[in-house]
Every structure is written in structure tokens, then in C-alpha cells.
């Protein structure tokens, strides 16, 4: 097992030891030595510990006591430095110090008792217990101050200083982009900047957190993380999006909605959260890998085909955990698609109709062919159902298994990839519930670290604990105290993400000037948040504020109507089924909705949007458009991503983006007399006031004296065109596309 070799190479610093005159105590004296020197190779976390020996649980220690016996172990510790059998090996810091060996000898001579010790919690598995229990989230200002203190300690260690505090205008734009996902409008900006209320920053955070815009922006955020594609076949995505929207709008605790999705069962109109499972209905391993990355912060992808080269994760572990996870399964059969109708009889009529249409060479313009296709699609939708398996079945060694230590198709017991295996056969409890409890329960600290780290990354622009989809251990974190504290805070917030975000945004750390992206990589010390380009959605939604008066969609979307699906499920005969489909086709054509009704429009709109995306009917916030937007659409050009891979959005500067901002027809929409910005600018008689509003509308700040002089020069003739030229100039600045 190659990965074991990789583990044996950490540098050890031996801490000062208390030489005990009294009896040696296992947990206070011996365990620290074992942890420092032995657990890298001899721990039950490693699937195959070296020599089959581990020292981190009562059971394992009992085995050592029986065989090879402690005396034999002591002999290995006392071998000369050059001996091959020395433990720990010379290149891993061996031999131990004399006083350490003496302590171990004393402990063995006293009977090698372990007191009440059960199992060691490895450092990445435990939270800072000093803070546990106290409510550290109640007072937002105090919670923010504690974070600032921990950040500052990290900065001091590296000889760095916190950046200067940002001004009100910078905070304004930053807070709007972070919480509302767009620039403030001129009026919103004026209101905040003119206000002299004390604590107005904290108030802004609070009010934006409760706005419709908050829901729109955070729906975009989670759509990327969960890879929600609204255009996938079937209507379940719409329902799932509705579920996510509702969960965000009601600020449902994160752990709660994750649990709801992981334990979701039924049909889509019964439980829209099953969209989570249906997302990867056709590729369950992809769904499993994505789940492990997103919620458990562990990228296990490579172990599908081979042992992980650098982590204790084997190909067998991958499939054991899969056996543990796959407690739910999409229902792909047809047996219970219809309540009463015989499925075979239905399928016969389907094949007949299909055969007829193909023999007649009908196309999708022909009604008969349209009905066949709609009937087929609806029938496929009716199969969408999730049920928990009655028991956790485990899995089998796949054909592709590349090592010869176990036969193909051998049974693999279900096992988690880390942490303790729960009791699998709890009476009366569904396997998907057992799995979910393990994954999201308080004993799985990774679950909490993942979301704390994820939200920190979202707000500050860089993580404290590595990528949220593949977390570092606390030992590897640049500021472990901060990372640990954030997890603690997340628990204290009871996974209330709004509150957690508000605390971070109230820190002085957040309200500091930015640091360039390339410096963060060196030390992950947060002198300020990281300078970032706006997301594709933030740029699009900000531009919209110049065109439309009201851009934020209501936070509650109408629930999709499943009455048609329910009627089909209740159909008693194929004739009834097909006549329902015929009626649905009529409805679609009349209302210009659905597969065929909207199709003409969709195709038209895609031709248009394929050019720019700036087209009257489709000027709505990104969260209300199809996810992902079509190719060539503004959102795609600016890196929206395809929702194919977790957070596949990108923010690189490209030529098509520049050309779009320079020459694209978005400027036509903005300059129209009916646009929001035209309305705000009014008759443009007062040149200084007009210039100020243009600045507020684009950069959410007031021009300084020098800029005002420049702007006056550009708009010297006072013409409408000249003011719009100033607007064009500001939209093309780097400042516009970067978070201030």
C-alpha cells in the first residue's frame, strides 16, 4: 500500500515532558508521546496500519499488550540509531528521547494501564473544547471581535498588519454584492451614504440579509455548489430549485436542509428535495463523489479507480463507503408508475404509436409525433421516485478493482471513510437515516468545518482550511485556531448561515481594504478580504439595475404544478393517458409554455440570447433564467459555468468579455429613454449632480475632485450622449468588474 509510505515523513518536535515521580498516567503522559511519534503509521484511522499495530484505542492497545507485548515494543525503541528495525524509524524522527523512553518503561513496569481511555480523537476530529457550550454567537459585535483577535494573532505571527479600514462607499458596494448579488441602485446608494445613523453598516447587513435580492443571489450560489441544471429533462429541477429557494428564503438551518435532502423520499410532487438524488440519477457514483466533496469536504474521486496516492484512502474504502451511502436509490422500474393501469398494456400503445409515427416519417412538427414524444417524456417523469433501501446492503468489489488482495465481486461491508462506523442495523431506522445521522451529526466535525470554511471563503475570498471540497486537517491550516473557532461559531449559530455571514461581515477583517489574490497563497493571513472579480451573475444583475426599475424577483416562487403528472399516474387506461397527453399538448400550444409551446419562443430567444442576452423579455436576474444560460449568453461569456462540476464558474479575463462590454448591445438597452438609469438621470440639467449619479449607478461612490474635473470635460457639451459616454467609460473600467 503505497499511501502508507507517504505518511511516514512528518517532522516531529518533541514537547517538554513532565517527568512523573508519581504513577504514570496514560492519557496525560503516554498518549502525547504516541500521538507525536506513532499515529502516523499506527492508528486505526489508517485502514492497514503498519505491522497491523495501532495505539489509538483501548481495543488496539489491548491487542498490543497481548501480542507482541509491550516489552517487545520497548526493545524496538531502544535499538541503536542505525538499526533497520528501530522505532520510530530514523528518517521519521527516531529514536525517541531518553526521557520519553524512560517514561514508557515506567508505564510498562507499572502494568501499562490505560485508565478510562477508550479511543483517541485525532486533532482534526476535535473542536476547541474551551469554547464549547458557551453561546458565542449571541452578540454579533463580540463574535466579530473574537474573529478579529484570532486573525490579528495570525497576522502578527507573520509580521503583517491589518489593512486600513474601508470607507462607507466601499462597504456599501461590497455589502450589496455580497448579500444582494448586485450593485446598489442610485437611490439605495444615496440613502446609505447620506445616513448618519450610528451602526449603519451593521444595519445594512441586516436589512440586505432579509431582502428578496438575498434569496436571488444565494440561490445562484447554491445552484453552483449543487450543480442544479434547470434545463435537465423532467420537471424535477424546477421543483428542487423551488425547494432551495424556499430553504434560503426561510433561512432554514444548513444542517436541516442537508438532512432533508439526504433523507428525501417519494415523488417530486411529494418531496421536491429528491431533486438532490435525481440530479445524478444516471450516474450514481458521480452523485456519491459530489456529495462527499460538498458535504464531507473529502475529494474521493481518484479512489474510484485506484488507492489515493497521498491520503489514507484506498479503492476498497471508496466502495465500502459507497455501500454505506447508497441507501437510497432512484426508482427506475416501471412497476409502480401507474396506480392502476397495467404498464405493459401502456407500453404496447406507446410502441405502436411510435412505430406508426416513424413509419410515416413524421417529424416534430406533426401532432401525432408531438403526442408520442410528450407521452414518452411524461412517462419517464413518472418513474422518478426515491426510496430508501430496507437495509444497508454494502457493496461488491468492482470488476475494475486493480489490486489482487481481494476477489472481484467479493462482498464489502458498508463503512464510512472516516470517523466511527455507526450501528447499521438499528431496529426501525432506515439506512438513509443512519447514513445521514453519521454524515451530519455532531460527532462528524468535518461536516461543520466544511460549511464554516465554505462561508468564510465566500465572504473573505480565500479559505482558512483549504478547499471546501477537499479540506485540510487542522494541523495543516495556516491559522488552526481561527479555523477551529469558526467551526465552533458555526455550531453556536446552529448552522444559521445568515447570522454566520453577518458576523463575518461585521468583522474589521472584512471591513478592511483588499489584498491581491496572489499574496494570499503564501500565508493565508487575512490583512483584508481578497480582491476578486465579480461573478458573472453579479455583473449581469448589476447591469440590470441600470435598465430595469425593479430587478429583484419575489423570494417566494410559485410551486410548480404537478396536477398533470398526478392525473397521468391515476390514469386507468392507455386511452385516458393519451387523451390527457393530447390535452396537455393543446394547453402548451395555447399558453406558449412547456416542451412544445415554449419551444418556438425558446428557440427564438436562444438565437437572440446566443448573441448577447440583452433582450427585453429576458432582462431578469440570473436566478430567474435557465441554469445554465445558453451558450454565447452574457452569463456564459463571463464565466457562469455549466453546473456540470461543483462550482465550475470561472473568473478569468477573456477577449469576448472585453468585446462585449466595449461593443455589445447592452449599451443600447441602458441608453434607452425608458431605462432605469435614464429615469434617474432625468433631464440632466445639473451637470455635477448627473455625474454624481452616474458614479453612484456604476461604482456606487461619489467621484473625487480630480475625477469630477475629468468627467466635466467628457460631458462639457451637456448632451445626453456625452453623459452616456461617461457611463460607457465607467462600465469599462477594471473597477466596475472587481469587488472594491
Amino acid at each position, binding site marked *: 500500500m503505497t499511501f502508507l509510505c507517504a505518511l511516514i515523513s512528518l517532522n516531529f518536535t518533541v514537547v517538554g515532558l513532565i517527568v512523573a515521580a508519581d504513577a504514570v498516567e496514560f492519557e496525560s503522559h503516554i498518549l502525547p508521546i504516541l500521538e507525536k511519534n506513532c499515529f502516523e503509521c499506527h492508528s486505526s484511522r489508517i485502514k492497514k496500519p503498519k505491522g497491523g499495530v495501532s495505539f489509538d484505542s483501548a481495543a488496539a492497545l489491548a491487542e498490543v499488550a497481548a501480542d507482541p507485548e509491550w516489552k517487545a515494543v520497548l526493545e524496538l525503541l531502544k535499538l541503536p540509531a542505525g538499526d533497520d528495525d528501530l522505532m520510530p524509524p530514523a528518517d521519521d524522527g527516531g529514536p525517541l528521547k531518553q526521557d520519553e523512553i524512560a517514561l514508557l518503561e515506567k508505564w510498562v513496569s507499572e502494568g501499562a494501564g490505560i485508565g478510562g481511555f477508550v479511543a483517541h480523537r485525532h486533532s482534526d476530529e476535535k473542536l476547541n473544547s474551551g469554547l464549547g457550550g458557551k453561546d458565542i454567537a449571541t452578540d454579533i459585535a463580540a463574535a466579530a471581535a473574537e474573529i478579529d483577535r484570532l486573525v490579528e494573532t495570525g497576522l502578527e505571527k507573520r509580521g503583517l498588519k491589518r489593512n486600513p479600514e474601508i470607507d462607507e462607499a466601499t462597504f456599501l458596494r461590497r455589502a450589496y454584492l455580497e448579500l444582494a448579488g448586485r450593485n446598489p441602485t442610485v437611490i439605495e446608494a444615496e440613502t446609505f451614504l447620506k445616513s448618519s445613523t450610528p451602526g449603519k453598516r451593521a444595519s445594512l447587513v441586516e436589512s440586505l440579509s432579509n431582502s428578496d435580492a438575498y434569496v436571488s443571489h444565494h440561490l445562484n450560489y447554491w445552484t453552483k455548489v449543487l450543480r442544479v441544471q434547470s434545463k435537465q429533462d423532467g420537471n424535477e429541477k424546477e421543483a428542487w430549485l423551488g425547494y432551495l429557494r424556499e430553504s434560503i428564503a426561510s433561512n432554514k438551518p444548513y444542517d436541516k436542509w442537508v438532512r432533508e435532502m439526504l433523507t428525501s423520499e417519494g415523488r417530486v410532487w411529494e418531496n421536491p428535495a429528491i431533486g438532490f438524488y435525481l440530479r445524478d440519477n444516471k*450516474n450514481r457514483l458521480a452523485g456519491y463523489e459530489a456529495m462527499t466533496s460538498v458535504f464531507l469536504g473529502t475529494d474521493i474521486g481518484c479512489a474510484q479507480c485506484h488507492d489515493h496516492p497521498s491520503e489514507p484512502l484506498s479503492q476498497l474504502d471508496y466502495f465500502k463507503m459507497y455501500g454505506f451511502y447508497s441507501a437510497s436509490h432512484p426508482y427506475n422500474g416501471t412497476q409502480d408508475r401507474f396506480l392502476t393501469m397495467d404498464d405493459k398494456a401502456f407500453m404496447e400503445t406507446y410502441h405502436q404509436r411510435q412505430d406508426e409515427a416513424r413509419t410515416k416519417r413524421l417529424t416534430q412538427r406533426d401532432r401525432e409525433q408531438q403526442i408520442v414524444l410528450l407521452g414518452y417524456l411524461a412517462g419517464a417523469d413518472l418513474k422518478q421516485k426515491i426510496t430508501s433501501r430496507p437495509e444497508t446492503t454494502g457493496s461488491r468489489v468492482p470488476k475494475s478493482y486493480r489490486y489482487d488482495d481481494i476477489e472481484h465481486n467479493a462482498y464489502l461491508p458498508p463503512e464510512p471513510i472516516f470517523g466511527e462506523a455507526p450501528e447499521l442495523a438499528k431496529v426501525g431506522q432506515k439506512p438513509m437515516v443512519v447514513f445521514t445521522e453519521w454524515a451530519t451529526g455532531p460527532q462528524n466535525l468535518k461536516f461543520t468545518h466544511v460549511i464554516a470554511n465554505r462561508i468564510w471563503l465566500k465572504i473573505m475570498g480565500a479559505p482558512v482550511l483549504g*478547499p471546501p471540497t477537499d479540506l485540510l486537517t487542522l494541523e495543516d491550516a495556516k491559522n488552526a485556531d481561527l479555523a477551529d473557532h469558526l467551526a465552533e461559531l458555526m455550531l453556536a449559530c446552529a448552522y444559521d448561515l445568515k447570522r454566520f455571514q453577518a458576523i463575518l461581515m461585521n468583522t474589521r477583517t472584512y471591513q478592511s481594504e483588499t489584498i491581491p489574490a496572489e499574496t494570499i497563497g503564501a500565508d493565508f493571513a487575512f490583512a483584508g478580504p481578497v480582491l476578486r472579480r465579480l461573478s458573472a451573475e453579479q455583473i449581469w444583475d448589476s447591469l440590470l439595475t441600470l435598465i430595469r426599475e425593479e430587478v429583484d424577483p419575489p423570494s417566494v416562487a410559485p410551486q410548480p404544478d404537478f396536477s398533470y403528472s398526478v392525473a397521468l399516474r391515476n390514469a386507468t387506461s392507455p386511452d385516458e393517458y393519451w387523451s390527457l397527453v393530447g390535452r396537455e399538448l393543446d394547453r402548451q400550444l395555447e399558453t406558449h409554455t412547456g416542451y412544445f409551446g415554449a419551444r418556438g419562443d425558446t428557440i427564438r430567444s436562444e438565437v437572440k440570447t446566443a448573441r448577447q442576452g440583452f433582450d427585453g423579455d429576458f432582462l431578469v436576474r440570473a436566478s430567474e433564467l435557465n441554469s445554465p444560460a445558453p451558450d454565447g449568453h452574457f452569463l456564459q461569456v463571463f464565466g457562469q459555468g455549466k453546473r456540470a462540476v461543483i462550482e465550475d464558474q470561472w473568473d478569468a479575463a477573456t477577449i469576448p468579455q472585453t*468585446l462585449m462590454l466595449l461593443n455589445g448591445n447592452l449599451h443600447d438597452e441602458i441608453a434607452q429613454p425608458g431605462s432605469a438609469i435614464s429615469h434617474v438621470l432625468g433631464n440632466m440639467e445639473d451637470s455635477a449632480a448627473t455625474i454624481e449619479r452616474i458614479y453612484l449607478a456604476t461604482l456606487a461612490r461619489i467621484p473625487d475632485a480630480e475625477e469630477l474635473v475629468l468627467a466635466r470635460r467628457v460631458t462639457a457639451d451637456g448632451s445626453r450622449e456625452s453623459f452616456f459616454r461617461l457611463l460607457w467609460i465607467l462600465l469599462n*473600467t*477594471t473597477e466596475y468588474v472587481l469587488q472594491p
Partner: protein
Amino acid sequence: MTETDHSRRQFVNRLAKSLLGLSVIPRPAFAAVPGAKSTADHVIFLYMSGGMSHLDTFDLRPDNKEIQGPVTGIKTKVPGTHVTGHLPLIAGQMDKIAQIRSMSHTQGNHEPGSYHVRTGYDIGSGVIAHPALGAWITKLAPRLTAAMPPYIRVGDLGGHPSNGFFPASFSPLPVSSAKAGLQNSGLREGFDRATFQESLDLVSTFDRKFRQRHAGSAQVAAYAELYTEAVRLMSSEDLDGFDIAREPAEVREAYGGPQSPFGQGCLLARRLIERGSRFVEVDLGGWDTHTDNHTEVAKQCSAMDRPIATLLTDLADRGLLERTLVVVSTEFGRSPEIDQYGGRNHNPFGYTNLLAGGGVIGGAVYGKSDPSGKGVSENPVKARDFNATIAHALGIDYLQMETPGSGGQFFSIGGKDTDPDKGKPIAALFG
């Protein structure tokens, strides 16, 4: 350095990359195989989307009427080589074309098949996206000119693997149609060249303070630089490369004229590589001939015949064919059986791809499909072998490993170098 350190460092690099954007990452040195000589500088990648029937085009079955149906072969410029009578012009160019009649994989649906042949990997994970061949080549080969975008795709990016796990700068620049040219490259109404330039200068003036304040940020520098690059492209002669209207009418006609979008794409491709693009893709859709295969394939042949034949002669006349590899690829071939609707269904187990120019021996036939037309009987060629062959022609190390930076995974054009199943170039096709 411990492994833990290593993965952390990888993470840091990756983060820096994702935060920086592309244009600021130093380009890697040309990943050339030591001592290898390239035989091509450019690739024109023609993709027959939907699954081109090998049996009705290049790999005929004249002795088996049941498989062949009504298709009759004609002689070509290469003695003993026949193609369908629906490709009379390509027949006259077969001395430039090498056929690989033993392409084979197991992905029988369009999306997975297309992903497989374009990337060399199977579609699947929700965590890793693999780069398309063009992205690999753009990543591993140096740019030929400063102004000309290296990787251009005529058509949309829908369903295309694009840059995969590489940064977005390695994704193809999409030109939605050859006729329309590069989006937004023309001046807006009301702007003349002088006003535009003046306004651009004003953008720099207004942006100066911000840029100064963030002088340490490579991202800010990248944006500023990009404006320069975009404007350079807008005003350069290279932009003319995107404008096929500048071709003489008889040339446009020779490629099939305005009624042939594919022909216009081929003409555009020639103009682009002429100006220094590395890799240009053009698709010809409509090959999914499930119904009335023979009628449909005849239509498809007439859509591909003139454009491809003209492209080859045009490139040869201009002395470009020698260093330009023209590729004809598809996701799979079609089944030997004709079903009750007169259609052929998907067949990934054996099908035909073509290569021309770029050092490839014209007229060569490599590999053999089996007598049934379904599988391969001689020298099977995997997608990875085919892609490695293209990389090999460009002098690129097809086993150069790249990582998305997560989970310790590494990928190359040819797969893992330790894998017995790794891709190998078809050496026999080169002189």
C-alpha cells in the same frame, strides 16, 4: 517535502490560479518530446456530429449487398481505394488523406461518445471535467502569434468539454457562425474609430487610480492588458481573419457558397490558421441517420464533399497543407444492420476517422474493420491513440501529465504513462 505539504502547495497554486485568471499565469515551456520533430503546426478539426456512417462513406462493403444497401463505390486518386459515389470531389483528393478504419470504443450514446473521443476520457464525475484535445494542445504548445487567439471553434460550446479542468483561457474562442464572424468585434453605432480610441484612452484615465491602488494585483493588470489585447485584435489585420467576406467570390463559391455553413466554416478555418491560430474546430451536424440512412447519408455527403475537397486543395495550393493537419472525426460509426425504418443505429465498436496533411502519408489506410462492419479485426485505435497521434504530429508530449489539483489525480492526452492501456501515436502514418 511531505505529501501533505505537497497537496497543500498544490492547493495554494490552484487557488492562486483560480483567483488570478488566466492571462497572468506564465505559459509552460513547450512540452515537446525531446528529440521529436513536429510535422505540423496547425490542426483543422472537422467533427462529423451525430455519428458518421463509416460503411456508407469510406469503409465500403461492395461484396456484401446486405450490409451495403444501394451505395456504390467509385475509384479514387489512390489505386485500389474506393469511396462512396456521393463523395466524387473527395475521391479526387484521397491521395492526401489517410484513413483509420479501426477506430473503436464502447460509448454508444452521443454525449458520452462525443466526450470520450474529444477528451480521451469517459464522462462521469461531478467533480472532474476533462479538457478537449484542442485545450490540451493550446496548453502544451506555444502560441504562434501574439494577436491571434490560438483555439477557435466555429459554433457554440454547448455539450463541448472545452477547457475542462484547465483555466478558461484554454477554452476555444467561440465564433457562433462563420458568416457572423467574431461577436462584438465591430464598433457600435455612433462610434467612429477616432471617438472609440479617444473613449478608450479615457477609460484608462478614469481607471488609473484604481489600477495604481491595486498595482500589486495581477488580476487588475490582466484586465488592463486584456483591453489592450482586445483593442489590438479589433484594429489588427488579424481581425480580418474572422471575416470570410474578404475572400473573392469564386473562393467562397468553391467552398460551397452561402448555402453551405460547413463550407464557410472550413474557409474561415483556413483564414484563421493562416494567421497563426493553432487549433480550429468546425462541426458538420446531421449524421444521426436513424431513419432512411441512405438518403440522409447522401445528403450529408454532399454537404461535406465540396468543402473538404476544396479545403485540401486550397491548403495545398497555398503551401499550408504540409504543416496543417486536417482531422475528420466523429463520435462513432453506424451499425451494419438496416432497421425497419431504413436507419442505421450507433456503432462505437468500429468506425473510420481521417487525417490529411501535417506530415501524414496521404492515401494510407490503417487498421481494418471486421467483415461484419461492426468491430475491428486489425490494429484497433482508441480515442487516446488518435489524439496522441495528433499531438505527436505537433511535436507535443502526449504523456505530459497535468492535474486539476485535487485528489492527487493526473491526466494526459494519452492517459497515465504507467497504464498499459495508455495512448500511442500511430507511427505508421508518418513518413
